[in-house]
């Protein structure tokens, strides 16, 4: 699929003509060497990325890593020194002011770290700002601003002024201002960075909730890895102006590209990152229609397991233990009579954290999709092994 946003070979050098600095960078010089040689600061160097439509692309990095510069290149607030940024085939790095304004008015909205609400406008006027700039009629924009405020739960505060609202509410207004113009792309520059941890958590959940219905393409900047892991469909980790690694939360935590990323992910609660599917084994279910208790026993003996799932017409019907199967075989009963439905199930997307309570039972956990089909099984010991994985790795490192 074609990416919604495509950044290719982006550089940003602050302070004057960039050509020498870029040549030096390509020759392999470091940020500090370039500062010493030219007095220029390297913001971003040779960054390429793709953002697919409808995903949350999180750029994570510490301050000075170039993440804010990167996001500002997407809507042209900062012009790259080299490289291109394509938004649906428009290269915002090199287009007329008029084209750039059109992109900003109709396609890309932005939410800021310190809210950047206009203090002289009411909440409703703030939310309607983008629409007013676009030249929409007053009545229509009032309606749409009100709808946007309701989306973020501030429908009743339209007549307040921003300074009468708490930080969390102000950022909701910021979000409503972004949503009101119904952009395809939402840029969020550390939007929750200035909020209390508790409110930040709420806002993250609300953003995910909104995203479920809105399906915007979101580029989200953060310095908080937990936030990145909680929100990101794809996560890019930036350091010193380059992207150190791009991948899903599981890829970042599971196989960090270098020591820098590994150091970041060390303290992460892995159970919040890994989904059940990541440790699932392929299911080898029996079919109620064709298999009997004897087949069940043979299967378990072959695989060396104590219980096996049984499907009926594609759907998960239950589980049969070796003991139940052999009893059924002895008594000449159907496989159906040996089934028990008292076994744990979970969805493939559920996090390991949610598997803890299920992992205590004797049976393996069945992963079923929304249609009730068995997609895999998770053995309780695998859950704990995955969580312990990291500590082992560390110990190995220490030994080495």
């Amino acid at each position, binding site marked *: 699929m074609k990416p919604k946003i495509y950044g290719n070979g982006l550089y940003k050098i602050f302070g004057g003509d960039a050509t020498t600095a870029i040549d030096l960078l390509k020759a392999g010089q470091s940020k500090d060497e370039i500062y010493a040689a030219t007095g220029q600061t390297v913001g971003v160097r040779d960054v390429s990325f793709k953002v697919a439509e409808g995903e949350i692309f999180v750029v994570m990095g510490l301050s000075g890593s170039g993440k804010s510069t990167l996001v500002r290149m997407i*809507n042209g*607030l900062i012009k790259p020194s080299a490289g291109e940024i394509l938004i649906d085939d428009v290269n915002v790095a090199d287009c007329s002011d008029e084209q750039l*304004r*059109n*992109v*900003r*008015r*109709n396609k*890309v*909205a*932005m939410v*800021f770290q*310190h809210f*950047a609400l*206009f*203090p*002289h406008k009411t909440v409703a006027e703030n939310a309607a*700002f*983008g629409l*007013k*700039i*676009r030249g929409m009629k007053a009545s229509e924009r009032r309606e749409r601003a009100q709808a946007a405020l309701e989306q973020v739960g501030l429908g009743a505060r339209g007549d*307040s*002024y921003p300074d*009468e*609202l*708490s930080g969390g*509410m102000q950022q909701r207004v910021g979000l409503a*201002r972004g949503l009101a*113009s119904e952009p395809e792309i939402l*840029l969020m520059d550390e939007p929750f960075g200035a909020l209390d941890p508790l409110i930040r958590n709420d806002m993250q959940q609300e953003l995910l909730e909104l995203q479920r219905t809105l399906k915007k393409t979101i580029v989200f900047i953060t310095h908080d890895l937990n936030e990145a892991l909680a929100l990101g469909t794809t996560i890019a980790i930036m350091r010193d102006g380059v992207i150190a690694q791009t991948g899903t939360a599981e890829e970042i935590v599971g196989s960090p590209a270098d020591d820098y990323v590994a150091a970041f992910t060390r303290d992460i609660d892995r159970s919040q990152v890994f989904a059940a599917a990541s440790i699932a084994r392929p299911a080898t279910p029996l079919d109620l229609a064709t298999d009997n208790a004897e087949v069940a026993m043979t299967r378990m003996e072959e695989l060396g397991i104590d219980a096996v799932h049984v499907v009926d017409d594609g759907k998960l019907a239950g589980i049969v233990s070796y003991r139940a199967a052999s009893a059924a075989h002895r008594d000449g009963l159907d496989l159906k009579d040996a089934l028990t439905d008292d076994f744990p199930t979970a969805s493939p997307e559920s996090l390991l954290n949610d598997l803890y309570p299920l992992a205590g039972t004797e049976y393996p956990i069945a992963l079923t999709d929304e249609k009730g089909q068995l997609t895999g099984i998770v053995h309780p010991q695998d859950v704990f092994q995955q969580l312990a994985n990291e500590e082992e790795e560390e110990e190995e490192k220490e030994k080495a």
Partner: protein
Amino acid sequence: MISPSDFLSLPFDDWVNIFVRDWLVPNFRPVFRAMQWPVTQVLNGLSTFFNATPMLIFTAVLSLIAWRTSGRGVAIFSLIALIFIDLIGLWPETMTTLAMVITAVFFCVVIGIPFGVMAARSDIFRTILRPILDVMQTIPSFVYLVPIVMLFGVGVVPGIIATIIFALPPIIRLTDLGIRNVREDLIEAATAFGATPWQMLVEVQFPLAMRTVMAGLNQTLMLALSMVVIAAMIGAGGLGLTVFTGLGRLDVGNATAGGVGIVLLAIILDRISQSLGEARAMRGPSLLATIRSLFSLRANKPPAEVERAG
């Protein structure tokens, strides 16, 4: 002792004389004459209006404005001050001075705000403008009275033009300052939503600079008032003339009366224009609400401030 003047003396005064008398005046007099036209129109309109308005009605309206903008104290003060001015027999002079001052301030705003905006937008323009403003503010006004008379003639309008030159710098400077001080993140936000430079100015920069601009307006107004006596020297009338003729005839009483009139007018205008610039007035009730509350028995107090959200 040896000094450079032993070897060389520069006829600077002659140069200026030649520049003004032999070049500027003959060549540009019609241009300057034409520039008087708008000032004359505004002044005549205002002057006719103020002088035609009955004293009692004018006093009532001004006190009302003072009450709405700056509260009861200023309103009572205005009422008493205006009655006092009438009692000492200086009402027509005061109206003339008021018309002159407002004309001068009007043109200062019309010229000054665009210049201030341009200065805020362009560093080059600002660099050029700054020394000119410095000269305008520091040069003694007596120095340019003579060339003004040469170019514009004698009378009220040349007096007003001298006043404009003197009172213009603060509003330019403070418009520039106000716009430059608008928070960078708000500019960025407006840009990110696709605002054109004009939308940026009208929607974000100017409204947020308003407080500072109003402070500039207040200073401009005060400077204009302080020029009325000097303007009287080249033929402007009003309270300035009362003071000036009083001085000439050593008539201490008349000069003092004129002076007191100027001071009272200054206090009223200062208080009103100052409170226009305060944030509360900016966000205050709309004109309609103001008029409505004027007719309600008691001034509707705004409801206690909305409880701050935790």
